[in-house]
Structure formats: C-alpha cells, structure tokens
C-alpha cells in the first residue's frame, strides 16, 4: 500500500451538506478534494468544477486509427497477394468500408476504455482513505491537509452535517 495521505475524511448522508462543505473548503483553499459517491452526481461534479474529461481525445484518436488501419490493412493485404474474385478490382473500396467502420468502432472503444483507465490512474486514490459506505449511500469527502489544518477542516465538515469525521495520517 502506498503511504497514507494525511488529511480529514468525512461521510455525509445528505447531498446538500456535502456540497456546502465542498464549496466552503474550496473557498478556503482546499482544492485537492477527493469526493466519493455511489453514483455519478452532477451537483458534486459542478461543485468540484473539474474540466471536461479528456477521454474523448482517446476516443477520437482511437477511432481515426481504426479507420485508417481498416483502409490500410484491407488495401495492402489485397495487393500483397493479388487475387481476382468475381470480376471486381483487386482492391475494391466499397466492401472495405465495412472493415474500416468496424475497426473504427473497435479501436475507438478499446482506446476509450484505455483512456478511462489511464486518466483515472493518473490521479490516483492510493493512500487516500475510503469507507465501504461510500459505495452504498453516503457521500465521502477527503480533504488532504497538514495536521495543523485538520481542526479547521473537521469543523467545516461537522458544520455541514457530516455523520462521521476522521483524521488520517
């Protein structure tokens, strides 16, 4: 396990309390929050204010790669050992569009997943505390902070109705 990150972990039953806490912490300079939720939540997203995920770039590049690969593979392979079938040209583009399309989707999808994994790993949750109830019905907020800030942060959490506040590290 990675070394524990020092900070304060809070659990909320109520979404509005959690949002208020996020806003307040962000206002007080705690931008590096980790917010756990059991389901994606627009309000949390908005509160944290991350830019749009760059996954779409992976999708685009993957898709274009697939399309190109589809074209290149079919055409090259046709000419590598030219064989005539049914009076059609050696490399006949219309049927190859199907292959191009399929590879666009295939590589696009796989690179999207790869993008999701890579991007998620880049901002790792390693060492950050987690509680199983976050995947059930609570919202968890972890604010990494030095020991001297812990009290202030804990206070913000309690004010906004955190059901449980623990200090880590």
């Amino acid at each position, binding site marked *: 396990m990675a070394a524990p990150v020092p900070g304060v972990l809070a659990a909320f039953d109520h979404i509005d309390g959690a949002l208020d806490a996020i806003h307040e912490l962000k206002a007080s300079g705690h931008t590096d929050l980790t*917010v756990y939720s*059991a389901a994606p939540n627009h309000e949390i997203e908005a509160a944290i204010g991350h830019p749009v995920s760059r996954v779409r770039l992976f999708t685009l590049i993957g898709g274009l790669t697939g399309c190109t690969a589809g074209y290149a*593979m079919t055409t090259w*392979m046709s000419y590598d050992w030219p064989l005539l079938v049914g009076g059609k040209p050696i490399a006949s583009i219309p049927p190859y569009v199907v*292959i191009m399309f*399929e590879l666009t989707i*295939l590589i696009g999808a796989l690179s999207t997943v790869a993008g999701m994994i890579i991007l998620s790993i880049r901002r790792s949750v390693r060492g950050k505390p987690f509680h199983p109830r976050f995947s059930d019905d609570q919202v968890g907020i972890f604010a990494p902070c030095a020991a001297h800030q812990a009290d202030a942060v804990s206070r913000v959490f309690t004010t906004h109705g955190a059901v449980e506040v623990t200090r880590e590290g």
Partner: protein
Amino acid sequence: MTAITQPGPPLTQTHAEVTRDVVATLGTPSRGYYLALFGAVGMFLVGLGTFVMLLKDGLGLAGYVHPVMWLVYITTFVFWVGIGHAGTLISAILYLFRSPWRTAVYRSTEAMTVFAVMTAGLFPIIHIGRQWIFYWLLPYPNQRMLWPNFKSPLIWDVFAIGTYLTVSTTFLVVGLVPDIAAVRDKVSGWRKKVYAMCSLGWTGSDNQWRHYTRGYLYLAALATPLVLSVHSVVSWDFAMSIVPGWHGTIFAPYFVAGAIYSGIGMVLTLLVPLRKVLKLEHMITEYHFDNLAKLTLLTGSILFYAYLMEYFVGWYSANTFEQTTFFRRAFGPQWWAGWSMIICNAFVSQLLWFRKIRTNLTALFVISIFINVGMWFERYVIIASSLSNDYIPYAWAQANPTWADWGILVGSFGWFLMYFLLFARTFPIVAIQEIKEMIPMPRRKRGGAH
C-alpha cells in the same frame, strides 16, 4: 410522453435499499435456480455431444441437401446475433436518449447481449466444414503469405461479430465496475477478495466518475452504430448474394428491426421469470414491461411492413425467380415455416396495441415465446426456402433438419442460459449505480441547492 418521463423505480427507495436488494440477489440461490442451471448445462452437453459427432463424421449428419447448404446453424447464428441487439439498443441507444426506464433492465439485457453474441460466435465455427481451421478467417501473418478476402461478407461478419462482442463486453464490464465495487463493500470473506479484484480499485471518487461518465458516454455512442451495423452486416451475408429471396435492398433495416424485435422478445422471456426468482418486482415493474412492449410493437410493425414489401417487391419486380421464390415461400412444400414466421411476428405483435396485454406479464411472456419462435422461423424461412428453389429448377431440393441440427440448437440455448444464469447469480443483474443516479440523495433542507 408522461409515461416515459415518469421515473422507473418507486421514489421511496433509498440508495441503501437499492444496494441491499441487489446484493441480496447474489445470495444463496434457491433450488429452482440450481434446477435451471442443471437444465442449462444438460442442454449444453447435448449440443457439445452433437458437435463432437459433427467433428467426427462431418456436417452430413445435419439436414443439409444440395443446394440448401446453409440451414439450422446459420439460422440459429442469425437468431442469436439478433437477440443481442435489444441489449445494446437498451443499454446504449436509450442511454443516449436518456430514457429513464432503461435503467432497471439494461444490465440484464446487456448481459443477454454478450452471451447471445458469444453463442452466435460459436456458430460460424460449428457450421464450417473444417472447424479446425476456422482461424484462417482472421488476417494473421502466416508462412503461406495469404490473407483473407475482405470482399467476402463472411469476413465482414468476422469483423462485425468480433467488434460487437468486444465492444458489448467492454460496455458491460465498464458498467459493472462501480456495481462490483458496491458489492465488494457489502460482502465478506473470499467473495470480498474476488469482487475487490474485479472492481479494479473502484472507489467512486470524483475523478473516477469524471472520466467514467464521459468514457461511458462515448462507449454508448460507439455502440449505437454497432446496433445498426452488426445486423446490417449479417443481413448482407444474404443481401450481397444473388439468391432470389436474399438479395433485397430492404434487408439491412429489415434485419435490424427483426433483431431488435427478437431481442426484446428474449428480454421479456428472461425478465418475466427472473424478476420473480430474484425478487426484483419493485425495481422491474409493469412500467418497464409496458415500454418494452411498445418497443416490440414498433419493431414488430416495421417487420410486418418489411414482410409486405418483400412480397410486394417480389411481385412487382416481374422477375420470375423472385416471384417463384416468394410464391413457394408461402405455398411451397415448407409453407408451414413461412406462415409460422408471419403469424408469430407480424400478427402476434399487433396484439400489443392493447395496454391490457402490454401490462399483463403472462400475456407478454406467451407473446415473447411466439416472438422467439417466429424470429427463428423467419431466418429459417429466409435461408432454407430461398435456397431450396433458386435459379436452376433441376437442382431444387428441400432440406429437412435432423437430430444434429436440433442438438446444436438445444445446445446453444443451454450454453446461453448457462452463462446467463451464472451471471445473474454472480454479478448485479440490476445496475446499482444507475438506479441510484435516478434516486435523489436525501437533503437536509427542502428545496436543494440547484
């Protein structure tokens, strides 16, 4: 529109209840489940035994005749590919359309998709004459320096089915990850360890959700054209040929509609008993069935239209070959298959105009069985009846399926059900996180922030 915008699950449910109820489905299964599983495995073994016989003696064991060179195996292949389509339609297209009713059912339909496509994927291998060299269809570098023929619709099939299987599996797995994490956090012992491994370190952190939701959206966007393309490509297996009764321009939309129709039929067949067995009545409700039934009605009507058009074009073309084919489809030696298809698909689906029937689960189940049978017959008719009387009358012949055909068909159902049952028992069959997304989290103050 009101029906669609009305959210699915009862609002009284809380996030905790959702987790609890869904995780409960993974508990010790009932005797009924084991019976079903044994039944499925038994059916699979029947298929396996038949396949071994085919490997040993050859495809002649099946009912093929010259010139009906494709029969039950390709029929069943198309049938299973078609089944898959409903899943992707519900999970991807309806996701993009933000249809709220999909959430409760999409996981099961998507699992059905994956297993149906897995089943379908077996058939090209079973069906070819030299099963042991099926990999020659893949473009891999070899010492013979040979490549496959990309002009062949069968190679398109390889790519289409391969892509479809990969993408729909990916889509299913991606959707499962947060739910597995939820299960992980609810169970203990070795199961926890297994689920922990499968959850890929999911915590539901804001960053994970950020990329996840985007990625999921794009996957849905990529899967959407697949729904249309895969069965179009499968239809081109037929439409690209010159067999009368096959080479119709209508085939792609006709097949896609048929695929979705049959897929929803299978969804209904599976969900009606499943929600009972897994006690999910409060999550999968009449509302969902009503919507599924409407979709069935829509695609069934498209199919009805396609049937009419086929006959119309056959007549209008003034092409003697087409005319003969369609005449014999309706009144030839295998008229019973032709009429089964029309009655089961075109006529029975029209019953769904009635709300009473749409919301009556018993009726829906019966209709869904008709749909399954009818759609299997549709492919059988298209394949067997078109091939049995094409251009050269002297070569006409009727095929009669044999035990080897039925054995593989039964086996395919066994194989499919086996996986589906194992899945339903192992992974959340209802998408936990998406249902939670539908249920607003409790607030301290009434009104809320936004």
